[in-house]
Structure formats: C-alpha cells, structure tokens
C-alpha cells in the first residue's frame, strides 16, 4: 500500500524535513537544557519551554496537556517514548516522585514493575523509531502501535503493529494472533482503515528482562500480513 499523504505538498514537506533530523533537533534541545521528566503511573510528564514545545510536536513524542501555564507546555509521554529519550538518545533525565533522577537500571526496574511487557514493547518501539518511523499507541484500532512514515499531520499511518512473543509455551504478550479468527478480524479491520497489519515477532532468546542490557540480545522479526485475493491477481 502506497503512503497516503495528507494534502498537496505534504510529501515534499516530509522529504525536505526528514524525521531523523527533527528527532536530532529535539535531542540536542533537551540535552542543552538538561531536561527532566516526572514518572507517574505509566506515563512521564515533561514541562517543555517554548522552543522545545515545537520540537516535541514535530518529532511526535508524547501528547500535549492543555493547561493555563503560559510559560511551559506539559507533555505526557508513554513509558516507551520516555525511555527511548533516556536510554537511546540520552537526552532526558527521569525522576520518580521527589527523588533525584534514576539510573538506567533503576528506571528500567521501575518501568518493568509498572508494565510487565515493557521490555518487549520497548524493543519493538525502539526497533521502529531507530529506523525513523513514527510510532504511536494503536489502542483505538485494537493493535499495539500504529506506525507512520512521517508526522501524523502529513501522512496517514501505513502499518498497524501487533507484538507477538516468538517463544511459545503459552508465554503470550497479549494472547493476540493465536487463532485464525483473530488474524481474520485484525486484517479485516486494518484493511478497513487502510493500514497493513505488521506483526512484530519478539524473541527474547532466553534472556530475562532484569536489565536494559537484555535489549541487545532480543531480536525482532517483522512480518506483514494481508489478504490474498486470487480473483484479483490473475491479470498481472
């Protein structure tokens, strides 16, 4: 399925301003101001100054919280987004409550405690983000993530991603795609909203998720699933 750009000029705008560059700008801005976030529940809150607000919006990390605060714009990030800024881009500190910023190991432990499947969802998230895809929650489509080629205001998401653990033994992340009916339902839904189902098989390769170092040992295999209509292929 070809990317569905929103309006004329959207594709040109995206080509002129690649996501990798936008993310790098956010990274440098956060590093310069020694930015810090607050971990609360399964989110991280960050107060962005004026210039950073724009960078957060353009790099598509988090969602803005509407408040009266004129000096700062608060953003609410998912655990995956925040940890990516912290661990991969190394441009953000994260506090828990009133305690001073946590180390990577301590933070990892906090996040695993709040979300059992964090190591797998983070692996998938970072796997795609590193390749400059924009990744957001897919809960409104009943999938784990929706994946965009560039900013959502410029293009519709092409992929709806579902995470599956490669290792069997009933250790499911979320029980998805274990029966054909679920494959059928999911591909049908994806088709209706013009997205391709992207299954991400996460293989822990026997590693335990006690430390972020396990991420290097995890592997991700991508697989797109779509219906094949025999009637439509013959003319090719």
């Amino acid at each position, binding site marked *: 399925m070809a990317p569905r750009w929103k309006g004329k000029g959207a594709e040109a705008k995206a080509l002129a301003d690649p996501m990798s560059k936008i993310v790098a700008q956010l990274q440098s801005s956060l590093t310069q101001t020694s930015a810090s976030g*607050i*971990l*609360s*529940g*399964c*989110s991280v*809150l960050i*107060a962005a100054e*004026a210039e950073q*607000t*724009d960078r*957060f*919006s*353009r790099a*598509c990390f988090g*969602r*803005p*919280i*509407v*408040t*009266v*605060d*004129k000096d700062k*714009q*608060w953003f*609410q990030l998912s655990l995956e987004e925040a940890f990516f800024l912290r661990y991969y881009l190394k441009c953000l500190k994260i*506090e*828990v*409550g*009133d305690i001073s910023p946590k180390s990577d190991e301590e933070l990892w432990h906090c996040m695993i405690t*709040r979300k059992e499947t964090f190591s797998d969802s983070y692996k998938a998230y970072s796997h795609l983000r590193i390749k400059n895809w924009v990744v*957001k929650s897919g*809960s*409104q489509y009943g999938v784990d993530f929706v994946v965009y080629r560039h*900013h*959502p*205001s*410029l293009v*519709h*998401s092409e992929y709806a991603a579902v995470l599956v653990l490669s290792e069997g033994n009933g250790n499911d992340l979320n029980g998805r795609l274990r029966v054909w009916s679920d494959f059928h339902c999911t591909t049908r839904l994806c*088709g*209706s*909203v*013009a997205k391709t189902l992207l299954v991400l098989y996460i293989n822990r390769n026997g590693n335990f998720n006690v430390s972020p170092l396990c991420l290097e040992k995890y592997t991700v295999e991508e697989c797109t699933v779509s*219906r094949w*209509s025999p*009637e*439509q292929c013959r003319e090719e």
Partner: protein
Amino acid sequence: MEGIFRGGSESDDEIFLQQANDEDEYHYSSSSISKLQFRKELSRARWVDGMGMAEVIEKKGQIWVTTGIVRNGKTYCSIEEILFFMEVGALCLVDDNDTCICLEDIYKKIEGKMGAYCLELFDVYRHLKSLGYIVGRHGTAWSLKAVKSTCRPVSLQVSEESSEVMTLGSADKLSIIELFGTMQINDMMPVFDVYLPNSRFRKSSPGTVHLPKPKLKSLRDDVVAFL
C-alpha cells in the same frame, strides 16, 4: 435480499472507514496547541496530608455544585479534582503555610494517591469532566445527607491491565463484579461514578443516569441485529 452474505468469493472491497480524527491530536507545530485562560476568580483549597485530599477554603463560581464531597459542612476535593481545576486555572492549592503549590509539585504528589495507574485514571477523569459529565469516586457519597434512593449511576471501570475504559450500565458494585466474572474479566473494580451533565445536580440527591438501552431490531427474514 441484498446479499449480506456474499459468499467466499466476494471481491475484496476495502471500505475506507472514515479515519478517526484522533490523528489530528498530533500537532505538527506548537502554535496549534490550544491554551486555556486563567479564570478571574480562583477558588482556594488547602492540602491536607493525612487525608490525601484538599479542604476547600474559598469557593468561587459554580464548579462546586458538581465537585468535591461534603463532610460536616466542609467541602473536600480529591486529587483528580484538584489537578483538573488547577490545569484549567480555576483553583489555587496552598499548603499549611498558605504558599501556593504549583502544578509540577502536584504531578509529583499524584504518584501513589490513586493507585498504580493514577495518571491514567486522571486522564479518564479529565476527559469526561471536560465533556461536561459529573464524575465522582465510586463508593464515596457526595454528601452524607444523600437520599438513599433506588436510582443508581453508571459506573466506569478501568482495567488493571490496560487503561482502556469501559462503560457498563447498571447496579451496584457487587453485581458489576459478578457481571465481569461471567465475562471472565477479573481484577476489575469500578473507579468512578459518572452522571450526565445536569445543571440541577444536587449532592444530597445525585440521582441517576438515563442509560441508552440496547435495542433489538427485527430485520427481514427474522434476522435480529443487536444495535
């Protein structure tokens, strides 16, 4: 009749359902993020550490008709109510020394006050409250003068596993849990009671919500659809 069941060899009509406008929430530039205005008159509340709530010491505006619980003639508001009204600029929260507590400090305080998924529960509260619904903690009476009526509100449940919100019509906590049990959804507890927007809401008699009842409609050939 027109084939609802077209058989296995139907052409693969991909109907592009109208894309949800959720994607519009992702703004490309910061200038499109809306801003609220401070209200002219702020209510004031003092944080009470022992209670995990704030006592309202100065009320301004109509917000207190549908916010806060009344105990012994005083009004107290929960952390989600505090956060909501601070975000919209209608409330100033102070500590024992009458010093204003800022939004950042409250965000840090919220951790642990509403359980593990505090911020996610607050997201739900904020969303519904912004739409005009009247939202209270399930199981906490608005006022001790509340008339015991047979009317019950809709209860909102938030799953422990995810922050998806489900609305369920009906009764009290026990039967909601029984209902979940039959669906094999365990570990879900009602969190909020939600009432329709109502300018005549009274804490002493909160009343009930008119629930949209499921309708069974007969189609041709006696096929029944659940709408």
